[in-house]
């Protein structure tokens, strides 16, 4: 329809398949009133996520395989350029971080929820995204205390 103003945020929800995604989906209802799309790393969960919204596959990568990291990085650029999300919310891991990094470069706000698995300190991705994040949460109060900007708001599990 011409002339209709869109006045709600476009949110990208990004998480690696497995524990990271499980945790992110625990707060999925929060995004009901916004425009949402999903990014994850395994084809096998596409069906589950497609029921909730548009799904993009970026593949998995980690710090030990720089070539994979570059591939995933370029796929992130493609998604950010085409979808232009206003907010990116991620629980990690490395692919989530890369999407947040690219997103920030193109003006998105970043919400990072560090995985509950990181019980002693923020994950590597969390530490890397910390200076660029707009809201960053740890699920352990003793971890949040170690960093000035990290909040503790409860646990997802």
């Amino acid at each position, binding site marked *: 329809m011409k002339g209709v103003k869109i006045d*709600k945020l476009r949110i990208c929800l990004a998480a690696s398949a497995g524990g990271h995604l499980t945790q992110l989906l625990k707060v999925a209802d929060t995004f009901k009133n916004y425009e949402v799309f999903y990014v994850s790393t395994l084809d096998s969960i596409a069906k589950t996520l497609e029921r909730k919204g548009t799904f993009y596959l970026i593949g998995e990568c980690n710090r*030990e395989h720089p070539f994979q990291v570059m591939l995933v990085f370029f796929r992130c650029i493609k998604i950010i350029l085409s979808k232009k999300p206003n907010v990116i919310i991620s629980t990690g891991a490395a692919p989530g971080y890369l999407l947040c990094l690219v997103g920030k470069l193109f003006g998105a706000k970043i919400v990072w*929820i560090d995985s509950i698995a990181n019980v*002693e300190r923020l994950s590597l991705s969390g530490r890397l995204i910390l200076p660029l994040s707009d809201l960053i949460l740890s699920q352990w109060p003793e971890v949040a205390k170690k960093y000035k900007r990290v909040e503790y708001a*409860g646990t997802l599990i």
Partner: protein
Amino acid sequence: MIFLTVGTLFPFDRLVKAVDMTIGKNNGYEKVFAQVGKTDYELKNIEYTAILENSNFDKIMADADCLISHAGIGTITMALELNKPLLVMPRRKKFKEHVNDHQLATARKFEELGHVLVAYTEEELPDKLRELKTFVPKARKNQAKKVASRIAQFLAEANLERYGR
């Protein structure tokens, strides 16, 4: 039925071999079914598969009496939600089983909180497996709503900032 799973990412032969050997030595165990990932190791004493489709995985988890797994947060979460006793072995960086030792810290923390049993080495596995039969995990209080609230607050502010409503 005991369900052994190594998670979605990499095989975990050290755990799989240890369980296979333990079951082989003692015929007093109930049925074990294993999801072992893409590995060349051929189990001798347990029925297994490399990968399980989500719906199958969910069904087997629900039917299992107890679980054995790596110390992955996804599996720990599922076990707590289904109230299934879980024995974990943390993946170790030194054995190239994961990129760092966060599973060790996760295992220690969740063991401390009474949510899981932990076998830190293959040597500990047989005793822990015996303990698993009578282990009652401490339930975990769900706080996802609190986190959701905080995020909802952030989004409302961001929406206001951008669109004035």
